[in-house]
């Protein structure tokens, strides 16, 4: 495979861990121990120790039911389908934004629309989807399409693909953006067609990104409980929802946790496969030998036209869905009294104001702490000889692959009694956001470092720069796109997460998504829609601020990225 740019480069070569980094490593391991391993150990104890002795009774009970066994199979089918379709769509969008010559404004607009489903809380987007495509759906009436049953695999698949393909888009846009267009240029000047260049250069070089995106999406879908809660109905059970129902419907904490522990097996398998596959090859493209920057090349006219057509339809569909929510937030009673009003927003900024403030504070804190943690872990595991390196990377991703309901319960159990009591505080929510959702940042950092030749850093060192200078002047600027992607992801999920955090909110700290779920269950749909719109606006503002700060801090890197 024509992947390596030059034969002698090995991106997996690691430097000895210098003693200055030792405290950092100890801190990271310490926090992993406290915030990842300890809660899970407490939960494992609860599930697998019955009356003081180890027992598989809880697990056996859960899987004696054919319905739960079906849920396991369905979960895997769903996760694989969502990961495939989501990665595909994410790649299409990322390719168009980074490689096809479109006006800047359109690219910005595409990027903004794409993240909409991801930044909005799952309940509202699922409701919008049923209003559009469900029985008597608005869109079906509009297009005179006969109704079909959206509840089940189809609806869940569509909703989750819409929700998660932006994750693939963000991951892949960073990776594609980092591929030096000069490579593609060279291929074409040697006579390769655009399509051939795409097939033999661009696509293979995106493989680490694609694999990452697939893993992230597979994991997200595998552990998502909110979308199936609304969309899956009874014909298509999935494990996280079964676990949630076992806990909340049957009052069976042990049984529910046992069900969700089974999810660890497929999640682990995908992780190991991905490691095996991506680690064996070299993906270096940032070698420091770059000349003048060439304009990015597309994939050929026909391919581009096809891509743009798919993208336009999807973009229009997303806009349609979100107009339903926007409209719903502006009318008095959805479907009955359609006169316009701002009272739903008044509700958000009076009754809901505390939730808005708390959520923003929590999201900002989590993003700051989480991105530092993510870059540190990503950097250490890919560049340094760290004891138990693989274990560290694995542990850091553990909370991400477990369903939120389980992690949330584990946190309550672990931090309610015992040496560390955190229930009812803001730190417990922040800790959960940081250690559950920095996975994206870590993966993005690892993926970008895989593209960056360590000889760049070695050159800097041999020219006499200190390690510190090298890290801050060479490595960090190159890592910035990945770090930014990680930050954006962290901020967004801190704002929209619900499955785990619902168990951690308290009288003192409330969250927007929990309020939205409350509104939905209390049949306050207009208020739920208004909350969602406010949430989306805050997230967009925050993403804007993050990009702006990045531009100010690293004008050079950001200029290069924009030029692409």
């Amino acid at each position, binding site marked *: 495979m024509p992947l390596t740019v030059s034969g002698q480069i090995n991106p997996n070569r690691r430097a000895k861990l210098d003693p200055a*980094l030792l405290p950092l490593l100890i801190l990271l391991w310490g926090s992993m121990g406290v915030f990842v391993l300890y809660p899970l150990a407490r939960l494992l104890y609860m599930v697998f120790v019955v009356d003081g002795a180890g027992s598989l009774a809880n697990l056996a009970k859960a899987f004696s039911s054919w319905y739960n066994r079906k849920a396991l199979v369905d979960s895997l089918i769903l996760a694989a389908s969502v990961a495939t379709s989501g990665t595909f769509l994410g790649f299409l969008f990322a390719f168009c934004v980074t490689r096809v010559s479109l006006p800047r404004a359109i690219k910005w607009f595409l990027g903004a629309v794409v993240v909409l489903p991801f930044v909005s809380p799952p309940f509202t987007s699922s409701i919008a989807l049923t209003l559009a495509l469900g029985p008597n759906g608005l869109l079906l009436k509009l297009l005179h399409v006969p109704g079909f049953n959206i509840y089940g695999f189809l609806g869940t698949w569509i909703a989750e693909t819409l929700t998660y393909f932006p994750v693939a888009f963000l991951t892949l846009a960073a990776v594609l953006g980092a591929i030096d267009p000069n490579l593609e240029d060279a291929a074409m000047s040697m006579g390769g067609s655009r399509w051939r260049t795409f097939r033999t250069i661009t696509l293979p070089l995106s493989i680490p990104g694609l694999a990452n995106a697939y893993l992230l999406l597979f994991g997200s879908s595998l552990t998502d409980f909110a979308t199936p809660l609304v969309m899956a109905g009874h014909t298509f059970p999935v494990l996280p929802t079964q676990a949630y129902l076992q806990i909340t419907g049957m009052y069976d*904490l042990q049984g529910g946790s046992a069900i969700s522990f089974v999810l660890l097996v497929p999640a682990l398998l995908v992780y190991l496969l991905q490691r095996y596959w991506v680690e064996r090859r070299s993906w270096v493209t940032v070698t420091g030998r770059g000349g003048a920057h060439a304009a990015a090349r597309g994939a050929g006219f026909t391919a581009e036209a096809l891509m743009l057509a798919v993208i336009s339809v999807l973009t229009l569909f997303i806009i349609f869905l979100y107009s339903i929510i926007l409209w719903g937030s502006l009318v008095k009673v959805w479907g009955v009294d359609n006169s316009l009003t701002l009272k739903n927003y008044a509700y958000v900024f009076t009754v809901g104001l505390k939730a808005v403030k708390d959520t923003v504070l929590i999201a900002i804190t989590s993003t700051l702490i989480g991105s530092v943690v993510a870059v540190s872990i990503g950097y250490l595991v890919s560049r340094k000889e760290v004891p138990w390196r693989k274990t560290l990377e694995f542990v850091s991703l553990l909370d991400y692959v477990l369903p939120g309901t389980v992690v949330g319960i584990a946190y309550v159990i672990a931090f309610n009694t015992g040496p560390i009591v955190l*229930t009812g505080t*803001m730190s417990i929510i922040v800790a959960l956001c940081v250690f559950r959702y920095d996975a994206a940042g870590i993966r993005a950092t690892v993926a970008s470092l895989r593209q960056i030749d360590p000889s760049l850093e070695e050159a800097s060192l041999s020219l006499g720069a200190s390690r510190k200078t090298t890290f801050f002047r060479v490595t960090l600027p190159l890592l910035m796109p990945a770090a930014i992607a990680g930050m954006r992801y962290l901020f967004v999920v801190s704002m929209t997460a619900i499955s785990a955090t619902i168990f951690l909110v308290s009288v003192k700290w409330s969250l927007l998504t929990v309020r939205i779920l409350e509104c939905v269950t209390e049949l306050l749909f207009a208020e739920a829609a208004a909350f969602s719109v406010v949430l989306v606006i805050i997230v967009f503002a925050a993403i804007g601020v993050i990009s702006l700060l990045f531009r100010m801090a690293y004008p050079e890197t950001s200029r290069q990225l924009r030029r692409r």
Partner: protein
Amino acid sequence: MMKPFNSKSRLVILALLSLVLFAGSVSAGQPTLNVYTIWSERYANEIFSAFEKDAGIKVNWMRFSSGELQARLEAEKGNPQVDVVFGNMAEAFVNGIPKGLFAPYKPKGSESIPAKFRDSEGYWTGVALDPICFMFNAKFLKEHGLNPPVSWQDLLNPAYRNKLQMADARTSGTAMYRLLSLIQAMGEDKAFAYQRALNANVQVYTKSGAGGALPIARGQAAGGIFFLVDALEVQQKGYDVAISYPKEGLVAGIEAMALVNGAKQPEIAKKFLDWASTARMQRIYEAGRINLIPSNPEVKVTNPGLDMSKVKVLPLDLKWAGENRDRLVERWINEVLR
């Protein structure tokens, strides 16, 4: 060249330290009553602000769905974060007693609440009743020349094929009481045969009890089986829905309250439980548009929507329901879904 901590590690240390500091900064707070409830924000506000006014004790409360409340209570066992659970379904309390989640306390004045609405040992006291009902989209009924259903058998009408929404048997509350209503009305075997037949008319079994309410209100589905409190809420919002009851009978859910085992402020908690057992508390329902039926017969309701005098309400054996719940749900999955 090398300092003990480079600026990178310093940053991380700072970040992690601030985490710990946040943890420490939360103080114990003033002596206030802490409560978990499943009642909606508006309902809960009416009750707790009345208590604050009457007793001068501030109430910190949080709202969850019935099962989330229970899961949280169980996880917090050993260091409970609240003193009182208010308004959860009686079967949740029955389930929580052997788990040691609640402490017995017979509130003063609870004698005026009929014995069937409270635990004989004082573990829980029922404050309100919430019957099962049919809720149908009025426009759909009119367009199809149908009357609101008045019998369980009416729901089998082929006109409703793929048009009904109701809760999944595993969601707490609504679905459980639907099952119990059917068993009480027609016996267990007939109840399951009936549900098998009904299955053809069901568009989806929703995962939350009120999940089908909006689809029905908006005409995406024709109707379904709900708790009265949810159906009335939809009606009050302005949606045109018809509420009716099966003539064979139904059961009503009991919403109750209890003292949490190991409550940090048992005295204040008992004060609240005493207060909430009075007729005065249940009179707030009517004034505050709380669509629940008082458990205290001294409290009269004038809202015709809550008048159960013409509705056949069947007795409910909570102990039997608790003991048979897992079996019934299993049977529902095996016989109705399969």
